[in-house]
């Protein structure tokens, strides 16, 4: 319920920002008219009328909102196709690497964090921390280029260019996605490991963990049952935030390096060619993802912690 309200507010804000930003096309049209010796103001007026900008604000707002929610996101000049179509095609490629990336990051990040907790302050913990910071600090795009050089150019194990015409579940596709997924996982697993380690370490000294130990539980069971479950509530909060932030940032870099025609590249293309509907449409996808991510997280809370109950809300 609140997710819908939030979506509404964000989309409205986007509209307000866009509406009160000076329109480049109209200014240019005015300048062109003035250079040609015509009346600049009249020309600008004509263009405004053409775009419906002379309508009352609420009418403009209404049709904008209608278009957003009916998925009529306009036409992309630079791609010569409707924005929804462009977004849809790119999403197809983005999903292919981001799903395995998310799953691997969550799994390895959490596992490494719990491993660190179990061996807190020992060399094993320190090694994990070192690896986490290593992956965290190394620039994704640089790491990607180096890996591509070594495994693509020198060793020739993986293709250098991305093939869009291979099937999703084919060996060729796996081969070309290994490097981007690996680069993304190394970049994000560290953050998740830190969160998992710190959150679960907080539960290490709780009374109920002592109870579990007193019952005769082994350390593996204590970690996976008695610590992971309560710790996953605060963990999931940070996970969603971290992953979404990384997703937005990394997808542009990694898609550029590995020439994947995904959402990140679409956004970049829209920005560089000043294709406003395309930028807007791509941003909507990121906005919706964020909202859906947070909504999912709220639902997950109730599953993880029986004390949380949203009641009738």
């Amino acid at each position, binding site marked *: 319920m609140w997710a819908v309200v939030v979506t509404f507010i964000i989309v409205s804000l986007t509209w307000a920002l866009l509406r009160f930003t000076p329109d480049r096309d109209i200014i240019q049209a005015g300048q062109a008219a003035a250079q040609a010796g015509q009346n600049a103001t009249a020309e600008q007026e004509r263009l405004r009328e053409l775009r419906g900008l002379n309508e009352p604000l609420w009418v403009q707002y209404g049709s904008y909102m209608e278009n957003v929610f009916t998925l009529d996101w306009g036409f992309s000049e630079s791609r010569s196709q409707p924005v929804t179509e462009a977004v849809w095609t790119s999403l197809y490629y983005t999903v292919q690497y981001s799903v395995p990336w998310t799953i691997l990051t969550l799994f390895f990040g959490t596992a490494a964090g719990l491993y660190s907790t179990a061996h807190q302050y020992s060399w094993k913990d320190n090694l994990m921390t070192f690896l986490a910071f290593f992956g965290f600090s190394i620039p994704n795009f640089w790491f990607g280029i180096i890996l591509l050089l070594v495994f693509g150019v020198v060793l020739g194990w993986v293709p250098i260019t991305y093939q869009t015409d291979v099937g999703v579940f084919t060996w060729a596709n796996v081969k070309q996605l290994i490097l981007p997924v690996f680069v993304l996982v190394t970049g994000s697993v560290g953050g998740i490991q830190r969160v998992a380690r710190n959150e679960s370490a907080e539960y290490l000294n709780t*009374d*109920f963990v002592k*109870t579990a130990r007193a019952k*005769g539980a082994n350390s593996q069971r204590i970690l996976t049952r008695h610590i992971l479950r*309560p710790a996953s509530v605060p963990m999931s909060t940070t996970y969603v935030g971290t992953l979404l932030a990384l997703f937005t940032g990394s997808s542009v870099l990694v898609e550029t390096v590995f020439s994947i025609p995904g959402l990140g590249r679409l956004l970049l293309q829209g920005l560089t060619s000043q294709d406003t509907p395309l930028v807007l449409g791509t941003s909507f996808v990121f906005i919706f993802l964020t909202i859906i991510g947070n909504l999912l997280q709220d639902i997950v809370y109730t599953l993880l912690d029986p004390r949380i109950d949203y009641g009738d809300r």
Partner: protein
Amino acid sequence: MSTNEPLLSVRDLTTTFTTDEGTLTAVDGLDFDIHEGETVCIVGESGSGKTVASESITRILSMPPAHIDGEVRFRGQDVGALSDGALRDLRGGEIGHIFQNPQDALNHCYSVGWQIVEAIQFHDDVSKAEARERAIELLDRVGIPEATARFDDYPHEFSGGMKQRVMIAMALAPEPDLLIADEPTTALDVTIQSQILDLLEDIQEEFGMSILFITHDLGVVAEVADRVLVMYAGKLMEEGDVYTIFKEPAHPYTQALMECLPGRGESTKGIQGSLPDPTNPPDGCRFADRCPHAVEDCKKGEQPTLYDTGTADHRVSCVYYGPGYDESRILDAELSTGGAAGNGGTERTGGMNDD
């Protein structure tokens, strides 16, 4: 008291923690035995090391890493030499634990039934259905009304007293021989306290187990204990029969504790001063700095050994009971006794109650 081999025998138990301030000695050379069917109380103020001592027995101490020295024998078996697996079998299997704060001792993410079933299945190879049945029986036994319906409820749906009952049910699940109860009633209000104490007493009778009871509440000690160990700053100060301890407290610290009881002593007064620094304990008797009878010898060397007072099974770590001293000096000065053997039979002074 049984004269056979003790159920639990603890010798020179020393637990230290490495901290930023140095090595902290929480328990220092503790010796005691628990016999079958017996209830032993460890009494002492907060920070005296009684909880650490109880948790050192089955090594369930959590962070920071504790270093446990000394010998703990359970049924003659050296606990320190057990493998991890055997130690886990002992925990919860033969030695059950209940803790001070029932609010936090249950995992809030799982139903109470799940947690009891878990305890049962750690130690008995039974099916889920059988374990469930036994868990419900246990919940019923510890006085949870409508046990079947409450099996699937979560800890936050229970009151503090009910949670402590659940903890007891969980500790009883594998029918332990020894129950370590670490201040099980401290966090509960007084009416619930007595219910829980009654429950423990009933269960002890029914299951025939021994209880190691940790408390700072002398009222509780009087109610449950067979034998009492008085701890101060990680050291054993005095041990004896519960009647002896209450009637003829021998150590000045025990005497001071008794003075703190309402209705005893002239007025309810505290013990002046505070516990010594556990990272740098003073020479001699740990209590010397706060002791009204301290002499030069009290602040030299080691904590005095446990001297017999003359009463059966009554030992005290105080120089006055050693060679060259006359214990009646502190007894005369502070409280004097009701004429028990070996204590000179002086008259009571200072308005002590006569029981």
